[in-house]
């Protein structure tokens, strides 16, 4: 088989999702964001929601999420995405509204908006990228940073006595009656990507069905911020992140 054979349409086993455009991504090579963006684009297409979807981008690494998926977007102030999504979904109940937020955005500055949108059971999907660090601003400590983990604002490692403990916000949110789906996934293996895809699809379906708030936490890597190769970052995540943020459903009703 030569190159021409390989690239011929009948041999194509993978394609860029239709909704992803050709803008150059600003994400670091090896980062989880690109994979999750692709999954979201595929799910929106599969559910034929491209004309009904409104995405809310956060402040953080995904602040430019709106550059990569050809849907309507709102770019929120830091932490406020669930408030924007609340109003958008209430005013446009037949649309699919999702937020895409990192751990600093969702679990630090936006804690109140996250908890209260979920408690009201807003019919929105929240895609939560948890990599335990502030990526965009250069690797500072996040609420989700692990005990002892070194960041630029915890250079000797996170001291939980003075800096607090890793915040398991999904566990908190899962307790709320307004939440129909609270699940943790990852995207470090093909099987994990498939599982994430299934959960994001369910979250989007829940939004359309008016079942309440769905939160999909994708435990992610930040190889640049963690100062590791992408492969080492994946191993480190499995070894260190998964015990604190275990993969699986906390709630799925």
């Amino acid at each position, binding site marked *: 088989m030569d190159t021409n054979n390989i690239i011929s349409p009948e041999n194509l086993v993978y394609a860029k999702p239709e909704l992803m455009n050709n803008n150059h991504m600003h994400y670091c090579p090896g980062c989880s964001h690109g994979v999750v963006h692709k999954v979201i684009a595929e799910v929106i297409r599969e559910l034929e929601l491209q004309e009904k979807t409104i995405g809310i981008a956060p402040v953080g690494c995904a602040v430019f999420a709106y550059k990569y998926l050809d849907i309507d977007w709102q770019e929120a102030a830091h932490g406020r995405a669930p408030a924007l999504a609340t109003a958008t979904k*209430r005013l446009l109940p037949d649309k699919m509204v999702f937020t895409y937020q990192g751990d600093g955005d969702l679990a630090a500055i936006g804690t109140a908006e996250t908890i209260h949108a979920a408690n009201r059971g807003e019919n929105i999907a929240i895609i939560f990228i948890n990599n335990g660090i502030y990526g965009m601003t250069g690797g500072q400590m996040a609420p989700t940073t692990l005990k002892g983990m070194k960041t630029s604002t915890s250079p000797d490692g996170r001291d939980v006595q003075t800096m607090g403990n890793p915040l398991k916000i999904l566990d908190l949110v899962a307790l709320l009656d307004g939440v129909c789906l609270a699940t943790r996934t990852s995207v470090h293996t093909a099987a994990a990507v498939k599982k994430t895809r299934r959960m994001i699809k369910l979250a989007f379906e829940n939004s359309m069905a008016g079942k309440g708030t769905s939160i999909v936490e994708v435990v992610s890597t930040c190889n640049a911020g963690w100062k590791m190769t992408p492969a080492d970052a994946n191993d480190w995540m499995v070894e260190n992140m998964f015990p604190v943020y275990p993969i699986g459903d906390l709630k799925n009703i």
Partner: protein
Amino acid sequence: MSEEITLMKGNEAVAHAAIRYGVDGYFGYPITPQSEIIETLMEAAPWNTTGMVVLQAESEVAAINMVYGGASCGKYVMTSSSSPGISLKQEGISYMAGAELPGLIVNVQRGGPGLGTIQPSQADYFQTVKGGGHGDYRLITLAPNSVQEMADFVALGFELAFKYRNPAMILTDGVIGQMMEKVKLPEQRRRRTEQEIREQCPWATLGKTADREPNIITSLELDSAVMEKNNERFQAKYRVVEENEVRYEEVKCEDADYLLVAFGSAARICLKTISLAREEGIRVGLLRPITLWPFPTKVLNEYAGKVKGMLTVELNAGQMIEDVRLAVNGKIPVEHYGRLGGIVPTPDGVLEALKEKIVK
């Protein structure tokens, strides 16, 4: 239809006017002295009639960001609060200005700084017309002096906000919010359909159709060259607003030797001062700015060539006086009289100040 006149509070008038105007969403958080706005809306339950969404948010911060989200969809959305809560909303207002989003914010002012008092004040003038939030932006500001204007300015605020794609504020205070007067409410309008919004607001995030590019609502632009262009576009828009949207009222100005300059509740007090002064043979008029931004600079400058002096009367330590002095540009004396911390001036107090500081 016979004329429908009702007796109600200024805050209640805002709520009823919002329903009548066909507002799509109200998002608020309780704070004295404006909680009647959300209470009236909840009592009226407009979701059963017009389909208007009314939501009590978890904070003023969340409420203004709900307004940002709703405005992004081209909807008529609004929030209300009082001074400490308005401070919390400043981030969202700046983002709305930066993303060129229309929306209405009502500030029923109380005395500050800090938690201050629940009594009326006009001490948020600087915050409202000089920025409030970060960045070079302007907030269209309407200052009602009656319950009727509280109702009327809901419509005017939305019209101006949508005309210029800019947030607008009704800047009022505890006097106007709490006092009862007769008011004629506008007739009920129906809310716009999604198709109408798509036509009127082609920028709105209502879901991307195949015939257009994605709509993206953002205030972010990391390329400084582009960001400068954005700012220049905002500034050009602000100059158009300043040229076309100045509103003010003149009372007994034709023969006046002296001018009182006051807005909102302070202007009401000045009306009585005018008659007290004229009984004593002092010919006084009132110029009442209705839009605080854009400010009636031109007309004040013209009056500086006609009258001998001006006294600004404000429920603060002297804020609007700076804009009056800039307008007058040193031609005549301009002084200030105000009471602080929630105390409302009396007509006699204003007259005494006028005599002491201006008439002499």
